[in-house]
């Protein structure tokens, strides 16, 4: 494939993602880059790197969507993180303000998917980096002697980075806003020592199954609405209010029309498949006797 053919294919990802030959695109780009590097055409090599990274972003986004559909939520989360990282690197060299290659769409919708996940706390290592090498020339990096390759820049069609070759972990922290989003803590079964995924992915599952295509637009808004007291049987007047205010039920929501609980409101550009509920109580136990529902989803079709 030529550069122009590849560019056209990538531009049409929303309609051709099911049918395009990713293997052919990748191998063509590899050959084109080798040719460009061989004649020391740095601008052409960089252009091809941009196309390679665009392909990677698109494919990783599609992979994330498929993983979420298949119920592989943590895998999908990790794929979305790779999308985010690649987009950040790409955006320095290829501004996509006009949503070229659907990159703007992928950027915004990846973040929307991430916002639906229940992960709130992450494990973050504190790493003392002792020695690093340049990924372009493989020379050890010295503080006063630069190898000449700037991190993030493209040389011979490859992005320069630093590989840490000597390091030690000096601590671990629990953080809300990590750099490494993959560092999600999971429980462990005390008997089998197997990892237990205790998270509730109801909203993610709802969203991904309401979408016919990964390139159908959607939006989400978190609010709070009041739910009938009948949904909280077994909660006594003097028990903590199910809205989690910390106050007694009788002093908090009981005198009101219902219990104030999180409400997740979706809007879809394309109507979801027939049979998709327009209103759903979501959570590990939809009607627990003593525990309140975690959140509720509602679909509002755009006019």
């Amino acid at each position, binding site marked *: 494939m030529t550069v122009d053919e590849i560019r056209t294919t990538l531009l049409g990802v929303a309609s051709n993602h099911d049918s395009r030959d990713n293997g052919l695109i990748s191998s063509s780009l590899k050959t084109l880059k080798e040719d460009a590097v061989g004649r020391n055409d740095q601008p052409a090599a960089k252009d091809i790197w941009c196309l390679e990274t665009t392909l990677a972003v698109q494919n990783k986004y599609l992979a994330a969507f498929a993983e979420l559909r298949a119920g592989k939520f943590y895998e999908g989360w990790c794929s979305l993180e790779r999308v985010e990282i690649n987009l950040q690197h790409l955006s320095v060299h290829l501004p996509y303000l006009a949503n070229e290659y659907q990159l703007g769409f992928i950027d915004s919708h990846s973040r929307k998917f991430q916002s639906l996940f229940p992960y709130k706390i992450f494990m973050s290592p*504190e790493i*003392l980096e002792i020695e690093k090498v340049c990924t372009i020339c493989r020379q050890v990096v010295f503080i006063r002697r630069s190898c000449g390759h700037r991190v993030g820049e493209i040389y011979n069609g490859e992005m320069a980075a630093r590989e840490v070759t000597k390091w030690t972990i000096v*601590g671990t922290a629990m953080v809300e*806003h990590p750099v490494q989003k993959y560092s999600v803590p999971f429980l462990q079964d005390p008997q089998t020592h197997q990892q237990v995924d205790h998270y509730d992915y109801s909203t993610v599952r709802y969203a991904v199954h309401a979408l016919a295509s990964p390139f159908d637009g959607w939006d989400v808004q978190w609010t709070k609405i009041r739910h009938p007291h009948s949904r909280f049987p077994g909660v006594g007047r003097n028990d903590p209010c199910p809205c989690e205010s910390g106050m007694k039920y009788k002093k908090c929501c009981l005198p009101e029309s219902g219990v104030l609980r999180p409400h997740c409101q979706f809007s879809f550009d394309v109507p979801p498949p027939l049979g998709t509920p327009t209103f759903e109580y979501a959570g590990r136990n939809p009607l627990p006797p003593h525990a309140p529902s975690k959140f509720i989803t509602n679909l509002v079709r755009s006019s």
Partner: protein
Amino acid sequence: MADSTNEDIQVTDSTEDFEFWINKSYIPETLKPQLLLANVLLVPREDYREGVPLVFPVGTGELFAYLRELGDKSIKPEICIQEEDYRELALHFDFVVIPIAIVRYLLAPLFVRAVYDFIKHQKGNKLQKTKVIFEMTVVKDGGTAAHIRYEGPVEGLQTLVQSKLNLLGQGTSEATSAPNGDSK
């Protein structure tokens, strides 16, 4: 110089000027002449934790290279450490941490701008969501110094920090002239 506290930015008097840092015990005599030529000096965090005596935040090497390669030759950066002691600490929470800098007052606005441009180039489409921890000791010709610590959105470097530098230059009392309306 006056003391001040603000929501995201703090300005305090300081005595930690260039001589203070260059005369540290871990700086060999052979390195001192080189450091004395600098008007921007990146300094390590000391005693971060037991077993981690001298560290720079991850990315310091890239920032130092960026400053050295700037087209504006008025900035003469150096780093207050010898090669074999240089370590970076990656904390991996989603803040950009800039190494503490000792800066001559006249260069401070340029330095802040350079840091902003550096982060902007690194972060690309994530710039708007990026937060920075920035600390700088500004040294004036009379020997007085003020330490500025800013934590917040990267844009604040261009607004809050530059504004504080202007006030420092005027010798204005920080306690009564906080830019965001707070007064402490």
